[in-house]
């Protein structure tokens, strides 16, 4: 029951994100979506991921986005119509994509496996996996972080 509720919140929030004219409100709707997805994570037994979602997305990414919106507000507020005129082709394409994805996924059901859906994954198991099985992607992600940080600073810093 609570899953259905959260799903409804997420979908409605997502519609707001892409349709609201005011970009600030769209960003707040994105926060709603993110929190809803975090709730869905909880129902799926991924508590750690839920907290990470709240911390990083809502706490960091969304804050950055809001900052950016406010910094460029002079440009955005002067713009009367933020949503472009190519709405009909976009509706057609994304509708087709939605139908396609639904038709693919509608037949999927949870498998009747013995270990399936038997409670939450522990944080310690997740950590163990990250530094053993997934140590290479983990390291690559670390390097990516550094590169992104340097790149962001380099691109955004005012150089004359």
């Amino acid at each position, binding site marked *: 029951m609570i899953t259905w509720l959260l799903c409804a919140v997420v979908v409605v929030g997502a519609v707001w994100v892409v349709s609201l004219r005011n970009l600030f409100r769209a960003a707040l709707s994105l926060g709603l979506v993110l929190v809803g997805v975090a709730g869905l994570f909880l129902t799926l037994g991924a508590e750690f991921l839920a907290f990470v979602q709240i911390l990083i997305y809502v706490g960091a990414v969304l804050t950055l986005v809001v900052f950016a919106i406010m910094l460029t507000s002079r440009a955005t507020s002067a713009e009367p119509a933020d949503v472009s005129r190519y709405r009909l082709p976009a509706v057609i394409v994304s509708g087709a994509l*939605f139908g396609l994805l639904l038709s693919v996924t509608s037949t999927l059901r949870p498998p009747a496996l013995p270990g399936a859906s038997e409670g939450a994954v522990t944080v310690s198991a997740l950590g163990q996996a990250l530094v053993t099985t997934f140590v290479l992607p983990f390291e690559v992600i670390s390097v990516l972080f550094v590169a992104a940080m340097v790149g962001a600073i380099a691109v955004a810093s005012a150089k004359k």
Partner: protein
Amino acid sequence: MAPHPLLFTSCALVALGVYGILTRRNAIGILLAIELILNAASLNFILFGRWVGGVDGQAFAIFVIALAACEAAVGLAIIMGLYRTAKTVLADEVNLLKG
């Protein structure tokens, strides 16, 4: 046959994200739509991970979140640079690649 509610949700997120990318003129709005798609991906990872069992799904969800953070940082930096250079954040007004 009705689809699983979470799968329906993620499909809707992807479709809405694509719609947002195609219709938003503001670059920050495009960034928000991309976040929707990324969330759909991590939702699917966790769902299928739970169905299959083990920690693999959640581990990849962590990577997706990390990538999303990076993407947001770099994307916003590019937007700030663009704003400084072109005095606009409207993506369809930036046409340096016009042939």
